[in-house]
């Protein structure tokens, strides 16, 4: 049993990396929003689900490949996120964090049940022509969708990291994240930066949804399946850190995969919550500090 497990270790690690990249994508939006706005977005899972549905309907109705629809869904999700913060969460919350918490909670209830109402609770999958093609590594197969999603996720992180480091908007966002009052004093419109950040965070989810659809399925409650994992990654990588989200994603992906291999697919889930607790106790700033 143990030897059989060990012989599968390389496969489990590669597998963990593949999923880790996808988890990182979900966490990316969360960490950005957290790092800048310092709020916990309870509607994150619900918005991921919306992105999955968007990709599903683009494929189902217009036959647009999910990886192509990244180009459509990502900007739309970004605009959606911006609007919802600017005209919903921001004005309603009146600067109180517990209110933001409940407003995002209310939003998640509305979005989930809206999906149920309009799309029914039926589980949807896409059947891509290349969905079951795979690279043969000898000890395992890597399906095309997983490989594409993996590299797309890396690219996404790189783009976001570059945007944060090199553009004026990125610098403004980082300034707000570090020193809110100071940023206000030098003339940065903090409320607008908040909305933009929220928009970028949700745009990440839009991309994540498109990349996950070929691998996973969607129903009105799918998003929640990834939320706790995403929170763990955010904490592990350091709230607000793009690189941290990616590294955290890999660590959690491998933990889940290897944990499942060694402890069984039921108890193996314990690794995620253990890491969560240990990192909070011993290094609450995460692996990559608090820089954006």
């Amino acid at each position, binding site marked *: 049993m143990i030897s059989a497990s060990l012989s599968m270790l390389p496969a489990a690690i590669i597998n963990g990396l593949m*999923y880790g990249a996808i988890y990182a994508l979900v966490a990316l939006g969360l960490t950005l929003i957290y790092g800048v706005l310092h709020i916990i977005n309870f509607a994150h899972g619900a918005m991921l689900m919306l992105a999955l549905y968007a990709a599903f309907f683009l494929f189902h109705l217009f036959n647009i490949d999910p990886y192509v629809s990244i180009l459509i869904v990502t900007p739309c999700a970004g605009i959606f996120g911006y609007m919802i913060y600017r005209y919903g969460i921001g004005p309603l919350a009146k600067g109180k964090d517990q209110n933001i918490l409940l407003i995002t909670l209310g939003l998640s209830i509305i979005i989930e049940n809206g999906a149920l109402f309009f799309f029914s609770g039926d589980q949807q999958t896409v059947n891509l022509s290349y969905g079951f093609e795979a690279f043969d590594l000898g000890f395992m197969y890597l399906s095309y969708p997983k490989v594409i999603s993996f590299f797309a996720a890396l690219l996404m992180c790189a783009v976001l990291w570059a945007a944060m480091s090199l553009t004026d908007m990125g610098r403004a966002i980082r300034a707000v994240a570090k020193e809110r009052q100071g940023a206000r004093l030098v003339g940065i419109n903090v409320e607008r930066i908040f909305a933009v950040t929220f928009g970028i965070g949700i745009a990440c989810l839009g991309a994540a949804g498109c990349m996950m659809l070929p691998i996973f399925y969607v129903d009105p*409650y799918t998003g929640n*399946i990834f939320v706790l994992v995403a929170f763990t990654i955010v904490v592990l990588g350091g709230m607000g850190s793009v690189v941290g989200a990616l590294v955290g994603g890999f660590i959690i992906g491998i933990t889940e995969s290897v944990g499942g291999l060694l402890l069984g697919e039921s108890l193996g889930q314990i690794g995620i919550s253990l890491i969560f607790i240990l990192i909070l106790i011993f290094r609450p700033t995460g692996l990559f500090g608090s820089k954006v």
Partner: protein
Amino acid sequence: MSKSILKKNTSRRNFLGGTAATVALTAGVGTPWIAQAASNVKIGLIHPATGWAAYPAAQLRYGAQMAIADINAAGGIKSMGGAQLEALLGDSQTKPEIGAAEVEKMNEAGVHAIQGCYQSAVGLAASAAAAKYNIPFSVDVGVSDKLVQRGLSNVFRMADGYGRIARDAATNLGEINRLAGNPAKTVIIVHEESEFGTGTAKLMTEALKEHNIQVIDTIKHANPTRNFDNVALRIKSAKPDIVMPINYPGEYVLLAKTLRQQRVDFMASYSVLGGGFNFKFVDDLPQIAENMIDVNHWYNPSSASGQAMRARTEADGNYFTFEVYCAYMSVMFLADGFERAGTTDKDAVNAALASSTIDVDFMPYGKTEMVNGQNMGSRAVAIQAQKGDVQIIAPSEYASAKAVFPRT
């Protein structure tokens, strides 16, 4: 036609006066129910209409309402002067406490029988609440055998629990294997972690021994599981003849896809109550579904009424999933009880239901025979996806096609 009847008989609006509810709650007084036309027979439908099980719940409601419309159109309960059936809709929101509260609410509204609840945990709580008022309770879908093993004289189940399904699954697999010349000797079970998966897996392991098939590994997985690659690789290295998933829809489909992606070779995927095996799966992922086998509640495709029901369901734009006819059958069973009791008196109806001999012609069942509330005439069949449709392959007396086993 059937649609308009459907709407008309689903009057929840006068089930409890909404403003009356508020007033009574705030003022703390009052008896809430509003006088009803005395002749209606009220059947409460409690399902998880919102929450993760919303889809099966919608299918269950649909099937039950179709049955109610049909029975009403055929003259209602004749022994009660053509009394019409009326549905009271309840939503458990997947929570046992809400399910039990719905029973209380329906009892106030003068419900005469209740059916539900899909999830066993909710079914246990709701049927126990119904037992306090002796309300006849028919489990339309709910696989835990604890539902009918608590000595409650008001709880009945027409379809199978996992105990009987496990037995049928083993027998059917034995038959399929024998006809193919006994090629299959080993099985790996992949099951979800709750009572349904764990209990069924345990029973299967025992039952398969009688058919000289050995379970060489049992893999338990969490709900939800996001990633089945390790499981697939583990199966691949153990090289079983048969893979046996026992899990819920999301994981069922994910596992099937992953097995294919990892090119795992086996003679058959033979699931027990495979949550994701249905016409939609066959439509959505035909190349995966092809030749997969499942043992489940299934209608009798050679019966005219079964075919008609399927055609109607599909004409309404719905998939003909097992929830539809299980809910239909449950309503028929209750209506037959009222018919023979000739009254809505609870003791009389429970007695009538306990002695039911109704023959449900669209199911591959024998005559109904209730023992401690469980129908002993029920039977699960082995079904296989073949060329975009689903065929019964065992037992032979109901088979609509020959099994493709081992698959090529």
